[in-house]
């Protein structure tokens, strides 16, 4: 399976992780992976390992923070939650995503000259 490598896809995954944490609250990596799978209605099948890379990236940018806690089945797990800087970033990213997807959508609707 090809790994998600390109900047765009990395950015997309980061945006999804950030949104997930903003919507649901503190969550461990497994939970984030499940949530994305669920929301995408299993259309997006990613290597779940990449979620952890995304979590590390976001932590290093201080958009999310993490704390050790106990999982639903009583196991030690790291819970990630969005920070205020992360929320601001999410707003910015959401706007720009909307703009970009609008533009891309319009471009893709252009009719081919035949």
């Amino acid at each position, binding site marked *: *399976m090809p*790994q998600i490598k390109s900047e765009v896809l990395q950015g997309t995954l980061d945006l999804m992780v950030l949104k997930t944490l903003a919507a649901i609250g503190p969550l*461990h*990596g*497994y939970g984030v*992976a499940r949530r994305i799978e669920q929301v995408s209605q299993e259309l997006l099948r990613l*290597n*779940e*390992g*990449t979620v*952890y*890379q995304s979590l*590390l*990236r976001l*932590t*290093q*940018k*201080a958009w999310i923070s993490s704390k050790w806690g106990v*999982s639903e*089945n009583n*196991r*030690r*797990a*790291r819970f990630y939650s969005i920070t205020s800087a992360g929320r601001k970033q999410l707003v910015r990213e959401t706007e720009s995503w909307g703009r970009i997807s609008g533009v891309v959508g319009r471009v893709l609707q252009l009719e081919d000259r035949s």
Partner: protein
Amino acid sequence: MLAALRLMVARVRGLIGRRSAEDDVDQEIHLHLAMLTERLMRQGMNEEEAQSAARRQFGGVTATKEELRQRRSFPLIEAFLQDVRYAFRQLGKTPAFTAVAVSILALGVGTNTGIFSIVDAVLLRPLPYKDGAQLVWLGEVVKGDTTDEVTLTPDFLDWRARNQAFTAMAAFNTTERTLTGSGEPLPLSTAKASATLLPLLEVQPMLGRNFRSDEDQKGHDKVAILSYGLWQQAFGASQDVIGKSIRIDDQLLIVVGVLPREFRFPSSEPVDLLTPLGKNEAVESKRSEGTTIVRDVIARLKPGVSLEQARAEMEVIESHLAPPSFMSAARITVSVISLRERFVGNVRAALIAVLCAVAFVLLLACANVANLLLSRAVTRQREMAIRSALGASRWRLVMQLLVESLMLAALGCLGGLTLAFWTRGVFVSLLPKSIPGLETLPLDLRVFAFAVAVASVSAIVFGLGPALSTARPPVVESLISGGRSATGGVQRQRWLNLLASAQIAIAIVLLTGGGLVLESFWKLRYRDLGFQPNHLLTAHMQLSRARYPDSAKQIAFLDTLLDSVGNLPGVEGVGIGNLPPGEGHATNGFGIEGRQQLPRGRRPVAQRYAVSVEYFRLLEIPLVEGRGFLESDNAAAAPVALISETFARRNFPGESSLGRRVRLESADAWRTIVGVVGDVKTAGLAAAPEAVIYFPYRQTGANAVDVILRSGLDPGAIAPGLRKTVARLDPQQPVAEMSTMDRRLTESASRPRLAAVLLGSFAALGLILATVGLYGVMSFLVRWRFREIGIRLAIGAQPSDVTRMIFAHSFKVILGGVVVGVCCSLWLNRLIQTLLYGVSAADPLTFVLATGFLCLVGLSASYLPAREASGIDPITTLRSE
């Protein structure tokens, strides 16, 4: 920008908390997999299926971990730290290798650091005066009469009045004087200095005041400023010393100030007491017979004026000065140099040569360690092959090997700093004491940084070659043969040969340089002295002009002194007279009866020595012609003189000098020359012997003499007796510290001694390192060729053939090194040209001896390996493959 910084901080934190972060990730991933597996099992898979499906869904676990690890901190640094740990483990596994390599490096780094700390203190640090770089020294070279650099007082006054380049100018003369009136008479070194000197150096007296400008005039100069040391020693550091009168040479002076503790007088010797220059400026400006000299002139450049501009201006001023009535103008030139140059100019060449020598020693040390590393490469071939097979890139292997070198260098650096710290004292004791900056030789950050830099550069120098060569594993082959293969070594062999030749070449350079300088020193110090210095003790005495105003009083005192000192226990002979090697040049003009009497300044010159009868026997100066002085040559007898061979040759070429008559002053009586004695080095050890004229002190008197004793005892045992004897004859009369003639000579040869001792010992060190290195290379090459030699022996070669083969090989290596080395030496020895005396920089004898010696040493270093080679048992060697 901020984001980048935050990322940086996060990564640094990741680097620090490396281990716990690793554990955390393991836990997270483990949990993730477990939960995923459970979920899949709930969906109906059995445990085994679920586990492998979970792993598939997660993606590569190891790859993810690696990816996270890299992102978490700085992968290069992590790799570096890993290499450091690995390197220490490797070095710890071979303690013998590590110890040898570290010691060799410590030797190289230590010598370099030690010498650098001295070069730094002497040549690079500023003088101990505010804006010391602006200070210059001026002097006139009055050619013909003398090569001493002194300045005519009227010229100094004119310079001071006319120059535009300097903010201030000051002159001083140093003299030996005596402090009396409080207990034992105390000999002092004093300076007569312009009132402008201290302000010019930006020094304030600690107590009291500086001289006023009117005190510079003769007659108003009865004031003195004490040095801090003298104030402590003779005046008990009393605050109310200001205004007190002290007695210096029977002259009463008023103390007006005390100098600060850290003040260092700008002359070669420390000065205890300052008095005003005290010139009669009205008389001086007439430039007549009353003209005097000043020895040193110091000035401070105006801001923005360069030394060259100042020099140009001074040359113009000098060319407009009227010559004194007794001198011809064309002979006088002015020299303008920086004060630092004046202080250290004469050791610069020596220090630079020594710095080059230690750099070569370091190169040899590096070559040796490189050699050790290369021989280790063989045993590590398997390790490299395995690591390479496991996926390490060549770059990674090279990095790791370089880190090992760096660790060796770091240990060597530590050792070197320790060595430098302990050996500094030895270096300093070799330097002339007159050089400023050595009292507080600092081992500070600069020196430390130098040591680290030297060690790091060395690590690359000795590490890169072996690393590149080691990290080229023929993977498969090495694994199969278990690292014992003899193939693939051609290039490495070439490396080794080159290394050995380079060591020989460097050793040649060091050996010829050291040899030349040692030979110079030997010639300077021991040969052509013209006299015999062994078992002679001397003590200088300056008779007070006030109490011994005329020759009759001087003669009476010296006569009694000679009698009494001769009776001291342990004294085998006693004489008085002036002693070679003096500091200054011949300056006494003289006239010869029956020839044209030239005016002062144009007369031939000679050194004037007043001596006792025993003088020539004590110093073993041979009588060449005529007779020596007799007891009967006293004031009542006809005036006589002895002359040196140079005097005779110069003034009486082709005729006999005996019976001719000479005189120093036109008012003197003519003196008959009764004999000719051998030449001695009167004007310093490096100068050619000068014309000397000897008088019996009993006819002329003498106020500055050396008492000369022949004794097997050391000076400490005789000095109290001499001092007591003098005190009994005249309690006011001081005696300078007693010294041996040998020590006098050593002191006057301190610069050549510095170069000789340091270059000589570094040459010896270089020789040892090169020998060890050559032995290492040869024994390594032999081991390399075990199999080849085994085959040769198996197919009928005799052990003697093998020995010959090894010797031929090492001879080729040595010859290559010798050729390169000789060429380099011929080129490099120009650097030490100024350090040489009586020997050419390309002295064939030195070169032949050095190369011959080195060939011999090199071949004997090959002896053991050659014998080992001839003793190889072919069957064992071949079977072991």
